[in-house]
């Protein structure tokens, strides 16, 4: 049945759907405005048509971020090894994502080396070592309370020596408001560049899918400090819909590469725009 025309009430409903998924006020209003413009022409629509239009507009918005969705967990062709540095605020899932990613790369026949660059958080090195054992890949470490830059340097160097395909370097969680800690990331990069000047090839920012509007600020600040080249959104197995992805795609031109959907080794997926939008609307009324 549904309503026979798009009135304010229906638009309010749309606003609620988007805001309640953490899309953010600005991007929500942008989407609503587009829908208004579209339905201004053919005024009479029922609710199911409206939902289709909303989907289309959200996908269109995601497509404006002109980055390609990955097809698989593939290691880009570069001079070996491909070096990934993983960054983000505290507790978002960096170390876990590294473990899962290592498993996927290994499964596809790549030689993987991990670097235990979080030398600060209690038992962080131990945590990554356990992931290394679980996956079956070597972990380069200098123990706790050592210089993270020198761990990163060593990991890249060992990667070169071992003819590895991928090196993934973990870093300690840090809030983007802590200037000293943000500068440390730049230093880690500089020091690993002593091994090869084009590393890291990828700076992967991990965002927690249940994070609200602060995710925008995280993306902005980490990008400024370390030139983030890719995003991973974690914990999307929860009830949170990760609508920040839409807002972030709208406001930053960084591709979302991976999504985390659980704590287990296989709970990492390639981000796919269409599937993401489908899941966004699936359980919501």
């Amino acid at each position, binding site marked *: 049945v549904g309503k026979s025309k798009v009135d304010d009430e229906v638009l309010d409903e749309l606003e609620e759907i988007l805001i309640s998924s953490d899309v953010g006020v600005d991007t929500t209003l942008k989407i609503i405005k587009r829908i208004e413009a579209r339905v201004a022409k053919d005024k009479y629509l029922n609710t199911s048509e409206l939902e289709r239009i909303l989907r289309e507009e959200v996908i269109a918005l995601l497509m404006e971020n002109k980055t390609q969705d990955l097809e698989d967990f593939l290691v880009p062709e570069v001079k070996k090894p491909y070096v990934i540095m993983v960054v983000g605020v505290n*507790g978002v899932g960096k170390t876990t994502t590294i473990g899962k990613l290592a498993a996927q790369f290994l499964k596809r026949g790549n030689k993987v080396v991990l670097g235990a660059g979080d030398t600060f958080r209690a038992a962080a090195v131990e945590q990554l070592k356990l992931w290394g054992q679980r996956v079956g890949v070597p972990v380069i470490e200098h123990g706790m309370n050592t210089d993270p830059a020198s761990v990163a340097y060593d990991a890249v160097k060992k990667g070169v020596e071992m003819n590895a395909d991928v090196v993934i370097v973990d870093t300690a969680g840090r809030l983007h408001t802590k200037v000293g800690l943000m500068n440390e990331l730049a230093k880690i990069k500089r020091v690993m560049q002593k091994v090869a000047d084009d590393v890291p090839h990828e700076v992967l920012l991990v965002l927690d899918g249940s994070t*609200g509007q602060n995710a925008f600020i995280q993306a902005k600040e980490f990008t400024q400090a370390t030139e983030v080249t890719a995003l991973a959104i974690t914990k999307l197995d929860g009830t949170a819909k990760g609508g920040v992805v839409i807002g972030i795609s709208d406001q930053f031109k960084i591709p979302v590469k991976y999504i985390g959907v659980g704590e287990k080794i296989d709970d990492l997926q390639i981000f796919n725009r269409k599937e993401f939008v489908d899941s966004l609307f699936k359980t919501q009324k």
Partner: protein
Amino acid sequence: MFENLSQKLDKALKMLKGQGSITEINVAATIKEIRRALLDADVNFKVAKEITDEIKEQAIGSKILIAVSPREMFIKIVYDKLTELMGGQKQDINIKGDPAVVMIAGLNGAGKTTFSGKLANFLKSQGRQVLLAACDVYRPAAMEQLKVLGGQIGVEVYTEMESKDAVQIAQNAIQYAKANNKKIVIVDTAGRLAIDEVLMKEIAALKKALNPTETLFVVDAMTGQDAVNTALAFNERIDYDGVVLTKLDGDARGGAALSIRKTVNKPIKFISTGEKMEAIDHFYPDRMAQRILGM
């Protein structure tokens, strides 16, 4: 990045310039900006709507329409409202019992283990005999993490490294506390999402078996719109006594605090403001109201 309430109200009230008086329509525009400020701070959509509806009633009923500086008056109404909603009496945690058992629960990565250490340190500094119990049997190196923190603060940590039974470990820890003159046992548990039925059953079973004197729900101040669902789901299973809000040393506005307080109606008892063991504080509703509004 996000405008604070004053800036937003400036924008709304600027539209009034040149007009003789403030009409009800103008109030509506102002209310809309207040709602946006709340949404930017991650206050839940429904909660923000309820609050602004109430504020609107109040504004229309007050003298604001003829006030000299409606902006200040609006800000005061909003600020007072938020403070009242998050306030009430300051509530301490209950640590009566022999031993008293404090159970810590919440989402993955929220800051439970770190907070367990901080609370132990806080209680120890009051001269109490505390035992930490490592009951996260899932996360790699979770027990190791708690042991390191215990070592830093000089508090003993009860572990059973090979066990996969959280209930059993906690019960043994309590026995150990009794035998070793420890008066408080802080039970760190694994992180879990509210939709994970297996893990939610586990935490409910833990609560039932231990019958803790105090159960605390730990939530990250950066959490978005979903905070309410999560807080409600945990409350349904473990009927917690209080909330701990973490990572307030960052710049997240922390609207989740307001949403949780308003829907679950459990007091916020502690805040966490850093990674160090000293970074723990009581919760002050007025400060939180200022923070949410970006004042």
